[in-house]
């Protein structure tokens, strides 16, 4: 498994952002709509075709309609990737939103053009520097130089020869051009061989699309297309819903849930992360004596909200008891335990469900239609994880379509709504800079001794949440 810079795949494919950045760079240099370039003075030398950091930021703001902060951030990334380089302080690839001069990198040195930067090229570059500075290189460059000298010792004569040749050719150029080319080259190497401590913008993480999958892909070509055809045929046959209806669904969902969205609408008494006050969590713990108004209202949105909230589920159970159909909920819970339980306990759980809920004369017999019952009883002869699916769905729908609407109209629910709390908003602290003490809470892993942790891990859906220390 190779890690680090991409190999094999062209960089423009591996890093689609490079192509986009290049397009940006090209439009920045557009004669009409691009940045107005002029001569920039660098000490006593005049550098043509340059711009200021300010020019770059301004152009980005205008072109993309973004803020100065965002423009500066984006500009900085362009500089970090070596597409624009600074003339002053060239060792620091940073964009300054002031009169500092910058220049566009020549396409020859674009990150995606000269890919990958070879050891040989780097060696020649360091050798040139070494000669010019008479051995006085920066520490990490000195280390790299020595390392390369060892590694490609056999071609070192060639390296030194190339270095000398390039230096000789450089002397023939005008001073302004020489400075520019030096900066270009330096910027390129800052990107491709970043000094220690500087981020490596070219690092990609573990390689994707390695040989194994592509090989597998090639040999399965016939099967691959057969599967595609099969899939398309099935997909053509499926029912689709008109966009207008689907999208209306989002509007409705949005209306219902936005008041319950702490980030959108805040939360009462306050958001614990903002005020360091955990009252909100205490008041909304899975099992509290009196739930909040918002929480009880949410149970009315849909059946799922009610049954998935442990408190809501407990209230549902109370209601079903009154209607003598509590076994439905118990059956559903037992089926969940089967679906999400250990593979090794499947036969055991299926049998337990049968004994409690399905066997003739069972104490908590559930009322399933005869066809489903027949199918289920047949299925449990060879028990598997999904053997109760039909029966479970039937009972779930029964509760949802039948019991749930009655629950919402019941006195039980109406009382819950009436008694539910609306927490008062936390008063703003007089001294807001004094941080409230942040109390720890016991970890869920602590609630039961280690042996029982497995036991607890078995029951699906809800995790215990510890009571808050005050």
């Amino acid at each position: 498994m190779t890690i680090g810079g991409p190999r094999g795949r062209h960089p423009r494919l591996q890093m689609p952002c490079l192509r986009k950045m290049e397009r940006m760079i090209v439009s920045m240099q557009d004669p009409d709509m691009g940045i107005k370039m002029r001569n920039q003075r660098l000490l006593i030398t005049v550098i043509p075709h340059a711009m200021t950091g300010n020019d770059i930021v301004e152009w980005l703001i205008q072109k993309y309609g973004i803020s100065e902060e965002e423009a500066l951030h984006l500009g900085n990334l362009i500089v970090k990737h070596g597409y624009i380089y600074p003339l002053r302080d060239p060792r620091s690839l940073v964009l300054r939103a002031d009169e500092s001069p910058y220049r566009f990198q020549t396409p020859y040195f674009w990150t995606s053009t000269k890919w990958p930067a070879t050891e040989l090229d780097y060696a020649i570059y360091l050798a040139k520097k070494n000669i010019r500075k008479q051995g006085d290189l920066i520490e990490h460059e000195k280390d790299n130089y020595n390392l390369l000298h060892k590694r490609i010792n056999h071609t070192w004569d060639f390296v030194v020869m190339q270095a000398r040749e390039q230096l000789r050719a450089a002397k023939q150029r005008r001073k302004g051009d020489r400075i520019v080319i030096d900066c270009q080259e330096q910027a390129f190497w800052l990107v491709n061989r970043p000094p220690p401590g500087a981020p490596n913008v070219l690092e990609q993480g573990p390689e994707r699309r390695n040989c194994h999958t592509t090989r597998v892909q090639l040999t399965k070509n016939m099967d691959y297309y057969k599967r595609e055809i099969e899939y398309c045929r099935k997909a053509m046959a499926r029912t689709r819903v008109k966009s207008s209806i689907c999208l209306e669904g989002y509007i409705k969902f949005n209306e219902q849930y936005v008041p319950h969205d702490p980030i959108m609408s805040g939360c009462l008494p306050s958001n614990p992360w903002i005020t360091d006050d955990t009252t909100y969590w205490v008041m909304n713990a899975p099992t509290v004596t009196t739930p909040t108004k918002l929480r009880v209202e949410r149970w009315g949105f849909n059946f799922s909200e009610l049954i998935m909230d442990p408190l809501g589920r407990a209230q549902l159970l109370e209601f079903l008891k009154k209607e003598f159909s509590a076994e439905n909920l118990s059956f559903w819970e037992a089926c969940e335990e089967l679906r999400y339980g250990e593979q090794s306990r499947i036969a055991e759980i299926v049998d337990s469900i049968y004994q409690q809920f399905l066997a003739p004369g069972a104490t908590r017999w559930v009322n399933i239609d005869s066809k489903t019952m027949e199918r289920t009883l047949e299925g449990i002869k060879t028990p598997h994880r999904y053997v109760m699916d039909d029966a479970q769905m039937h009972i779930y729908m029964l509760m949802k379509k039948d019991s749930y609407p009655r629950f919402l109209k019941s006195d039980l629910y109406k009382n819950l709504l009436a008694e539910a709390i609306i927490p008062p908003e936390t008063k703003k602290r007089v001294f807001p800079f004094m941080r409230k003490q942040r109390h720890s809470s016991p970890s869920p892993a602590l609630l039961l001794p280690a042996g029982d942790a497995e036991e607890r891990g078995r029951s699906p859906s809800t995790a215990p949440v510890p009571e808050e220390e005050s």
Partner: protein
Amino acid sequence: MHSRMATEGLRENETLASLKSEAESLKGKLEEERAKLHDVELHQVAERVEALGQFVMKTRRTLKGHGNKVLCMDWCKDKRRIVSSSQDGKVIVWDSFTTNKEHAVTMPCTWVMACAYAPSGCAIACGGLDNKCSVYPLTFEKNENMAAKKKSVAMHTNYLSACSFTNSDMQILTASGDGTCALWDVESGQLLQSFHGHGADVLCLDLAPSETGNTFVSGGCDKKAMVWDMRSGQCIQSFETHDSDINSVRYYPSGDAFASGSDDATCRLYDLRADREVAIYSKESIIFGASSVDFSLSGRLLFAGYNDYTINVWDVLKGSRVSILFGHENRVSTLRVSPDGTAFCSGSWDHTLRIWA
């Protein structure tokens, strides 16, 4: 002998070519069918929804402690604890409210790209370049040696990119660079179901919040997002509109749609009932890939972490960008909204995690 083989070769090539063209033409017809029912755009329908006001979110906690790039994180159901994993093999469990570290384990491999918190809060799962997904029970015993209690559950033939517990601690769903997803029984390590169909590395997955739940969505380097039936292993729906790798997928809270984030610098929303892409979240100034996406509780906001170190906040209905959050000093690699929607956590290659609210 030679001529027979040549003829067979020719026949096989013909069949392959005709299969390919049949598949392509069917794909075209499928797109036509999908387009027929597309009578309105989301942002049009959303015109009557009130615009969002001033949006302010700040870093409320910074978690420092990883010595290298943070690659993945997940929330505990208790709404404050998190697990995070990094390039150097370290997996840390934090109480992010107090910023205290509660557990730490060093994996035997680097690039731990996936981690997940068990629903009970009693265990974590993680994996990466070791091609496995391992489960560690969380204990507070005196001489705690988490590594000793480690259980190897999933075995893939390439890197583990994502993992998630289902509704209990007993099952794990994994995604891998080997192009497959798989469902495992934690206790025995048995493979319960495998999911084949992606043409390249699978990078992400998310389980459907559906009440009758049994589906999940995955995204991969083949630019496809695929919806799977967990029971049968079949691909139910497939979407291919991104131009590049899909790094992250996340269901819309109602379960009727999901969002994706891709290296093509866009996030997209796919509706499952309409069977199509219904929104694209992009901006000309955003050119770096989106690595991680998640919805706010109501689904009105989509938070997306990008490889340009920023987090962009999108108005899901109107399609516009609401805000851009700066702070991280390197790629944002992972982002999750907390279980009760009070905050979200971002992890970055700058070695830190941040809680935003």
